[in-house]
């Protein structure tokens, strides 16, 4: 028993409530939010170190013992992702005052923001399938609030799409949990993992597994189910886009990773082969989307999709190397997507347009922004020594070891195309003849926007250059995931 596991959920939750009381006093709220999110980051980092040294922290809420009550499991995977989430949250909260209007800040932005962080952390931490659904709802509720913040016409249209698709997948999620409950009689993840091995008809479990995959794939934007993603993600404010792009789809990927390593690993031949094909299609179609448009925001939003493909590829190959590749890529992608969305927010702000054809020569006026964008492109495409390279290297090595040549080739091609789509923004937007600065008065604010992004980028570089330092942790997580028995024993204490 340790209450530490609940800390990453409670702190932002409390912050969100406190901030809701004084939502009109923008200045106080701003400073308070910044202080709390930094404190939260430090607290989470401390819990992470605890977990790294002493093993998983298990909290049986309300004192109800494991298979009966709701438990929170702070294992190394969860805590790594929660830590990453909080790094992004800190960058976003410092970026927010520059890009939000006063009206948006007043109308509960920070409350929704903290609720979103609480929901995402909760989804990473919970050890109970139904509770996972609950935390999905918490983060979705917050995201509904954030997506309509500002009340633009486009926003309302896109949010309806977003709400409908999520409502549908949530409905399916509950239904699927009910199916699973009727087969194994429990919603505790560890106990499910024990009981699925005892079920005689494995066919029904595979069916339920695929249904779960369908639900999570909708949230994560895997191949046939990604069509809803790009436009709702770019319609709200850049900070909100960054939060969505960095966190929401990753929760879906995390859920796939957790459920298909822990519970549904009995018919790997079928399920995980399916993942590999879907991963390949996801990469290709995502990258084609990114190349199809001149809207810079849309290019970045489409780039979420191939990244999801990469992570799914690691889960599909299902070996220790490939799983560690997925985890590495997950952490890397959360940080870099946060950074990219914020960068593009700043870019659109200084250029006054999101149409690539109307930009040009911005690097003469905003050199820092330009070079940061160039670096972010290299990170995203996976040029060594940046973090994207390490993740992709592990994934490709895993793929080659299992003779999955098709996916390896597709992954390489799409990496190249990702680089192309990103460099296109750099060449068209930043390079070119020196023109008159369209908005010289925006220079100061742009500089303020740059430094939260710089923090995220430096984390990303650190993750790549210091790979030697991070890799043992990631590898131990992969080992841990490949052996569900450790999770089961730590939760059920048998």
């Amino acid at each position, binding site marked *: 028993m340790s209450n530490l596991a609940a800390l990453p959920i409670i702190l932002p939750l409390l912050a969100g409530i*406190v901030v*809701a009381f004084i939502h009109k006093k923008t200045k106080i709220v701003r400073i308070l939010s910044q202080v709390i999110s930094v404190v939260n980051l430090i607290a989470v980092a401390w819990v992470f170190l605890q977990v790294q040294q002493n093993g998983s922290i298990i909290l049986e809420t309300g004192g109800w013992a494991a298979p009966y009550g709701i438990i929170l499991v702070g294992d190394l995977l969860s805590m790594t992702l929660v830590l990453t989430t909080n790094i992004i949250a800190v960058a976003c909260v410092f970026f927010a005052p520059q890009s939000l209007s006063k009206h948006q800040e007043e109308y509960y932005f920070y409350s929704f923001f903290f609720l979103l962080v609480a929901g995402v952390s909760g989804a990473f931490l919970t050890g109970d399938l139904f509770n996972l659904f609950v935390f999905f709802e918490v983060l979705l509720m917050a995201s509904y609030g954030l997506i309509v913040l500002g009340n633009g016409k486009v926003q309302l249209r896109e949010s309806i799409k977003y709400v409908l698709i999520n409502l549908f997948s949530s409905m399916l999620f509950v239904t699927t949990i009910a199916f699973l409950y009727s087969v194994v009689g429990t919603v505790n993840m560890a106990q499910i993992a024990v009981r699925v091995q005892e079920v005689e008809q494995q066919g029904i479990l595979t069916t339920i597994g695929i249904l779960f995959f369908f639900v999570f794939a909708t949230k994560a934007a895997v191949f046939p189910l990604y069509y809803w993603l790009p436009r709702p993600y770019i319609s709200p404010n850049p900070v909100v886009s960054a939060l969505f792009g960095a966190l929401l789809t990753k929760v879906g990927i995390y859920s796939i990773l957790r459920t298909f390593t822990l519970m549904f690993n009995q018919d790997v031949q079928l399920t995980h082969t399916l993942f590999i094909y879907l991963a390949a299609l996801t990469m290709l179609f995502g990258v084609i989307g990114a190349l199809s448009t001149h809207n810079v925001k849309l290019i970045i939003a489409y780039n979420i999709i191939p990244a999801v493909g990469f992570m799914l590829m690691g889960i599909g190959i299902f070996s220790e190397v490939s799983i560690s590749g997925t985890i590495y890529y997950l952490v890397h992608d959360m940080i870099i997507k946060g950074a990219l969305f914020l960068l593009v927010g700043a870019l659109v702000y200084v250029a006054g347009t999101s149409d690539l054809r109307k930009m040009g020569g911005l690097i003469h006026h905003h050199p820092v922004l330009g070079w940061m964008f160039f670096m972010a492109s290299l990170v995203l495409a996976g040029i060594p020594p940046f973090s994207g390279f390490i993740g992709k290297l592990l994934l490709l090595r895993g793929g080659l070891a299992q003779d999955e040549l098709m996916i390896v080739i597709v992954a390489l091609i799409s990496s190249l195309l990702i680089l192309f789509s990103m460099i296109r923004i750099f060449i068209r937007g930043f390079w070119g003849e020196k023109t008159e600065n369209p908005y010289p008065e925006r220079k100061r604010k742009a500089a303020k926007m740059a430094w939260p992004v710089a923090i995220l980028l430096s984390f990303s570089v650190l993750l790549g250059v210091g790979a030697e330092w991070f890799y043992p942790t990631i590898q131990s997580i992969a080992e841990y995931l490949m052996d569900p028995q450790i999770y089961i024993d730590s939760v059920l204490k048998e």
Partner: protein
Amino acid sequence: MTRTNDIILRTTTTLIAFILLGFSIYLFFAGHNKPGGGFIGGLMTSAAFVLMYMAYGFRSLQKILPINFRFVIPVGLIIAVATGIGSFIFGEPFLSQTFAYFQLPVLGKTELATALLFDLGVYLTVIGVTMTIILTIANDRGEER
């Protein structure tokens, strides 16, 4: 503005709202070990409020119940979360609950449980959310005219 003839609605409302409020409080206290609880109690209370709003109109209700319902939501939430965190102080797992029997003046021997405090948070949050939603929708139409 024409005066609407709603004497039947108003008369019945005084009676029904009274019963609804009473029953909602009963449900709230039945809470944690019988059917009922903060959620359903809160819904019923807001049902009573909505009925009163319909019968007496927005203005007069604002006079009788000068509550900003949007403010009630965080109040409820903080009560609920605080009861959860309370268990930190006693070194118990998050959200633990406890109860004891007390000798109260009128009620005699009564069970008092910390779950009731959590329920109070839920109760207030539900009232806040439902009333905010309904009043926002109701006001929306008024502004357009």
